[in-house]
């Protein structure tokens, strides 16, 4: 009886380890779903949007200018940021705002990327903390899950043909 239970427990443990490892490989090398919060990527990605970020581009070094990426925050490795890649290594970035008289430029160093949010007025990004190393990028956002959960009931007076 005891041996039977032990055998079953070991079998269950084996299955858990096997499926845990498969899940880890899927999340690490294929992609993962991410819930975004914050206003820095409006109107492309709004608060509470769910997006799918794929990992293959990052591992194969195929991230391009204009991609939206999920990256680890340079100040807290347990937090993630979602921004758009404005410049790759060696690119010239204009760091002055359009209203400045003198334009300042900077070059993105080797092995780094320059990120900016789409909502320029409300985003802390490379304009604040500088370019971040390429290795901090986790994945490229390739699909946004669109959901329409708020069904608004039509007000009664708008029925066609009513007097």
């Amino acid at each position, binding site marked *: 009886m005891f041996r039977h239970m032990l055998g079953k427990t070991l079998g269950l443990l084996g299955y858990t380890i096997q499926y845990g490892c498969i899940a*880890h*490989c899927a999340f690490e090398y294929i992609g993962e779903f991410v819930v975004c919060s914050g206003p820095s990527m409006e109107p492309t990605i709004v608060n509470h949007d769910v997006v799918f970020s794929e990992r293959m581009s990052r591992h194969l070094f195929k991230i391009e200018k204009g991609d939206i990426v999920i990256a680890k925050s340079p100040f807290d490795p347990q937090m993630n940021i979602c921004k758009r890649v404005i410049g790759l290594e060696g690119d010239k970035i204009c760091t002055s705002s359009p209203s400045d008289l003198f334009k300042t430029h900077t070059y993105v160093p*080797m092995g780094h990327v320059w990120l900016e949010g789409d909502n320029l007025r409300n985003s802390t990004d490379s304009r604040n903390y500088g370019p971040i*190393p390429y290795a*901090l990028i986790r994945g490229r956002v390739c699909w946004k899950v669109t959901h329409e959960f708020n069904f608004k009931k039509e007000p009664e007076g708008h029925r066609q043909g009513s007097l």
Partner: protein
Amino acid sequence: MRLKDGYHMAQQTSAGRRYVQTFISGFFVAVPVTVTILDKLAYVARVEGASMQPFLNPDAGAQSDVVLLNRWSVRNYQVQRGDIVSVVSPRNPKQKIIKRVIGLEGDFIRTLSYKNRYVRVPDGHLWIEGDHRGHSLDSNCFGPTPAEDMALVTAIR
């Protein structure tokens, strides 16, 4: 005679198919488990270069040292000053560099050859230096780094 041949062939086919099934199911167990162990636990690698002399690779011409890269012990990003870690190079994301942790976040560093004489290490960053001064591409060149993909290095002699 015909019936016996058919039966024999059916047995061989089913044995072949069972072999393929076992191979595929074994493959789908072995590969993810191995990849997860290499990503999360530890792996072994050879060290190249002279930036950590005399601790690693003390003889230039002899065989390069082999080290154990332990990811499990730094899974919560907890390193001590003086540990030797392997991180992704901030200059080249395809390469890993092995250096010693000199300063943690919040520390004030008096630099050897950096553009500023004194540096405060920002949050989430590390100041790493090679033991062999002058022959090392480290924080004296690229400043404090966010230290991605860390692993604790212990030498295997």
